[in-house]
């Protein structure tokens, strides 16, 4: 639990300077970029988990992350194409990417149960943080109805992942 709190604190610390710039003020296309970035970060970490972990729970979770985040990204790209719009890079996407690099470096240096615990804790903290931003700052401020609907569908999925990550944290606890 201590390391889980540390993990949540690390994610929060990564985002806190960015959050000071108010995610709620981002445009729809900037929010779409954040969501796409967050999806891709989780996909990268899932690939890492599949490369390193032998734990069936961890592998099943990582497969689900690949499957679900890919589905969301495909839907997001299809919607952007329909709207004739492109996602726009912004401070929050950059903060997420910077934080992800540090965590991926750390995860890549771990093996066995140590990797499994750290991956599980990070997935829980990551989904908690991103879900908070999407639910509190993004969805109430999205202007386009179709973009908003997609974010709502996405949040439903990511909340399910948060619950699944909690189960995984318990399963890999020492």
């Amino acid at each position, binding site marked *: 639990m201590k390391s889980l709190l540390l993990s949540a604190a690390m994610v929060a610390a990564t985002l806190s300077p960015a959050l000071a710039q108010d995610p709620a003020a981002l445009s729809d296309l900037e929010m779409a970029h954040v969501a796409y970035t967050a999806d891709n970060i989780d996909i990268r970490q899932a690939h890492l988990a599949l490369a390193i972990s032998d734990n069936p729970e961890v592998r099943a979770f990582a497969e689900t992350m690949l*499957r679900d985040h890919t589905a969301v990204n495909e839907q997001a790209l299809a919607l952007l194409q329909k709207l004739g719009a492109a996602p726009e890079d912004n401070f929050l996407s950059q903060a997420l990417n910077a934080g992800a690099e540090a965590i991926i470096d750390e995860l890549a240096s771990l093996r066995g149960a140590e990797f499994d615990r750290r991956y599980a804790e990070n997935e829980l903290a990551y989904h908690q943080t991103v879900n908070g931003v999407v639910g509190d700052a993004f969805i109430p401020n999205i202007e386009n109805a179709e973009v908003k609907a997609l974010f709502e569908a996405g949040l439903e999925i990511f909340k399910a992942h948060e619950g699944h990550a909690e189960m995984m944290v318990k399963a890999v606890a020492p």
Partner: protein
Amino acid sequence: MRLTRRGTLRGAVGAALAALMAGRADAHAGLIHGHGQKAHRHLVHDVDIRAFRFQPARVAVRVGDTLRFANRDLAPHSATAGDGSWDTGLLNRGETADIEVTEGFAGAYICAFHPHMKGEVGFGA
């Protein structure tokens, strides 16, 4: 309007086919399978997978009935028996799968990808 038995049968099959073609989520198509002794009405039970839930979460069935799972979510799902004895396999959004209820059918099932999603099939419909 009076219907002969043949007419009734044709009507039931026609309704079932129409429901199938329309892809109605709430279709409960009755198919009559008479085997000389006792005619059972085999039902199709629709289970929607929506908002990370099996809806309805519990379905009462009889052997020979069909469970028709339809994924209405963006995320891929499955309906997989708790003991692994039956499985729809991966269902992308908008896809459906039919599972026939057989003797000794395992009632408890989950989504293999999101194991907190649980459903139940009970007997005695």
